[in-house]
């Protein structure tokens, strides 16, 4: 029997808080944590009550009691109101104890008593982080009304951006990722080290090989070397091959001089571990300082290389799909914009040799483009293939148009990679194919089952 997922989520949140705060009084800290969570969850519940209250009355309309043009209209339509003053929200939702059985109706009853007050938002302050606020008393009273019961950072958020990247094939410079030879052992260790990282998880075999090949060995000759420094801008992601590193965080946000400049040691990372992955996204200040505790070896990967590998393969794949789609007669009236949308929606599937990709007589759902490998077409009553497909050939496109049974079977003769799109997916993006075909030539729509369009449609 497994633990409820809500419980597991709470516990892992608590674990993070514990690691961060390193409390002296663990029990008190946990008690406070759960009370805070309860408060937050009950507040969310109250919010949801507001959302579900009828339009034109109830709590939701007290948000801007002075000038709310919605509250005065029973239909909920916008009307012009003469009152333009702006009001603070009444913080009713934390007045009652959230554990009291009657708290919700009690709150709801307060709504009519809201009277417009002349005020501006002034110095109404939310605590920016739960950590900086004094421990909440176990009973929630009116005194607590100004706290925001979770740890969301309420400050203005800064935009981020990485280097401008343009795909290799569009700039004509022949960029290839750097390649550093590794033993099979090293490769499998690296693969295992990044397996849990969501940035690496979606990579296909080629991308994965390129990324692993690009990792560069970086010997750390002795202990006490600061590989990354908190507050510095970061360009590299590191995987530990051997040795060990301590991680320090200074509360000021950056490494300072002096004996305590490193801040608190918050962890250790050893072989198979990794750090600095935010640098693979954009140029952000390092969140910690990492210091070697012995002679060690690292593997390093820089952001531009990583993102270029991802970009180039995505770019090539898109152009290839668009090129294939241009050849599909049924879709010849698509605009380049529509074609790129369809290319974006194509899904890659791999089949081993000998797989029946579509079967004669089945109801067709999807359309396929052969991306790599070869396939053969069979029809009932003949042993020999009636046709062969190679890279760039497509089949089954009539499924986009109607529910007619497949006119033949297609079987892979080698391992194949196909790009595929279902009728639903197509219609979701562009609407029915018939409509698109009628754009060019109204007669085409009725000539759909003609031989010219799909050899598989032949009776």
């Amino acid at each position: 029997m497994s633990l409820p997922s809500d419980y597991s989520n709470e516990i892992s949140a608590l674990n993070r808080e514990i690691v961060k705060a390193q409390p002296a009084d663990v029990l008190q800290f946990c008690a406070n944590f759960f009370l805070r969570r309860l408060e937050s969850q009950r507040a969310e519940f109250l919010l949801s009550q507001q959302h579900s209250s009828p339009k034109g009355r109830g709590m939701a309309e007290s948000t801007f009691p002075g000038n709310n043009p919605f509250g005065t209209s029973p239909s909920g339509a916008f009307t012009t109101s003469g009152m333009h003053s702006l009001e603070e929200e009444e913080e009713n939702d934390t007045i009652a104890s959230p554990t009291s059985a009657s708290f919700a109706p009690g709150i709801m009853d307060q709504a009519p008593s809201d009277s417009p007050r002349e005020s501006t938002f002034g110095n109404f302050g939310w605590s920016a982080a739960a950590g900086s606020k004094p421990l909440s008393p176990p009973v929630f009273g009116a005194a607590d009304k100004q706290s925001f019961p979770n740890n969301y950072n309420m400050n203005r958020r800064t935009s981020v951006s990485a280097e401008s990247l343009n795909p290799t094939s569009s700039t004509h410079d022949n960029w290839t990722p750097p390649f550093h030879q590794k033993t099979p052992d090293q490769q499998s260790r690296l693969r295992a080290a990044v397996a849990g990282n969501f940035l690496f998880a979606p990579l296909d075999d080629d991308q994965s090989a390129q990324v692993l090949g690009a990792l560069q060995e970086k010997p750390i000759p002795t202990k006490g070397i600061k590989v990354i420094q908190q507050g510095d801008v970061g360009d590299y992601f590191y995987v530990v091959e051997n040795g060990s590193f301590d991680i320090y965080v200074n509360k000021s946000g950056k490494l300072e001089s002096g004996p305590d400049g490193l801040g608190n040691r918050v962890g250790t990372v050893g072989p198979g571990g990794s750090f600095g992955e935010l640098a693979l996204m954009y140029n952000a200040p390092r969140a910690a300082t990492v210091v070697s505790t012995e002679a060690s070896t690292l593997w390093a990967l820089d952001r531009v290389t990583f993102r270029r590998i991802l970009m180039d393969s995505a770019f090539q794949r898109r152009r290839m799909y668009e090129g294939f789609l241009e050849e599909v007669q049924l879709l010849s009236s698509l605009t380049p914009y529509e074609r790129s949308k369809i290319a974006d929606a194509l899904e890659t599937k791999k089949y081993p040799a000998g797989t029946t990709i579509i079967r004669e007589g089945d109801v067709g759902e999807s359309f396929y483009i052969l991306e790599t490998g070869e396939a053969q077409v069979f029809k009932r009553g003949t042993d020999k293939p009636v046709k062969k497909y190679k890279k760039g050939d497509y089949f089954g496109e009539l499924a986009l148009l109607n529910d007619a049974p497949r006119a033949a079977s297609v079987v892979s003769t080698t391992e194949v990679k196909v790009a595929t799109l279902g009728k639903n997916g197509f219609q979701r993006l562009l609407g029915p194919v018939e409509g698109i075909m009628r754009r060019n030539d109204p007669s085409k729509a009725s000539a759909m089952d003609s031989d010219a369009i799909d050899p598989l449609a032949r009776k």
Partner: protein
Amino acid sequence: MAAKIHQMLHHHSSSKDSGAPSEPDSTSPFERQDSAMDRAREDEKRALAQWEDKQRPMSPGEVHMDPERKAVGHSSRTLRKQDFELIKTLGTGTFARVWLVRLLDDRKGAQDSVFALKILRKVDVIRLKQVEHVRNERNVLAAVAGHPFITTMVASFQDHDSLYMLLDYCPGGEVFSYLRRARRFNEPTSQFYAAEIVLILEYLHEKEGVAYRDLKPENILIDAEGHLKLVDFGFAKKVENRETYTLCGTPEYLAPEVIRNTGHGTAVDWWAFGILVYEFLVGQPPFWDQNPMKIYEQIVEGRLRFPSAMSSSARDLISGLCTVDTSKRLGNIQGGAQAVKSHPWFANIDWDQLYQRKVQGPIVPHLRGPADTRNFDEYEPESGEREAYGEELRAKWEGFFDDF
């Protein structure tokens, strides 16, 4: 290219209007000091002083027309920093500072002519590798000037070491400030603001082929009448039917395809719009963690959690917008923005009235006058140190700033 032609045309026409001989411009235009220039400048300042009075919502078609034929959005060869009095800092970024400014003009009535002036130092723009973004920003703002819910770039200009964008001043301040103080918006308030944003995205995507790429409450201002103005087009880019790859945006609002670097387009704005509606209703965005990498992990997973009884139509809208698969994302699928406008959550919106600014907004700022800055926070004064824009940099980069 179009902007370049426009700039030449504009220069040409303004010289002609002021009766100056149309001579080829060998020196840097902003250093010219002849009397024709002064007269042209006076004309331009007069037009600026009257600009507010002539304002009315332009139809999407009118906004879309050639910037040369519009009253706003041109590259000015006559305006200088000295034509404005800097009153107060309204906002700062890593390489830009926005000031509330007053047009210095002897004529009566000009006292009321206030603007927001965004000043970017060329050397910082270059150092932070933002040249391309700044060019995009200027050209997109010029193209969209006149839209009822987008900040109007009245003019742009430059001098030896800085770039200037003269924008309309929105005295209501950021939606961000109202949202944080109110904690969250009720449903009708959220619907009103969300609907104005939909009209902006519809215009940017479907008329201009522009992806905005930095939607968040911090970049949405409230004007004197209580309507929204989208500001900060630093990441806006004309993408049309090609995908683009440079990662940019704000962590909590990044779309999964931006994080995974598989190429992105205007669909990122619909994702961010879903995050925005969520933040309006709940008070914080759906994906959050102290550690930014954990935010990104949640985003690519795309599992949304809603407060238990958020209205089902709001949930449905947000789920449709915040769909990881772009081929299933509302706004990007068949119907485009129209599919968003037809969503039941917007059932009470009269879209035509809304575009015409005829619907009363939920917050109308209290103001003592057009230059009231009470709705803006205080910012640190500018630091004294400046890196020089030396000859070497100038030789390499000056050409990139021609459009200003």
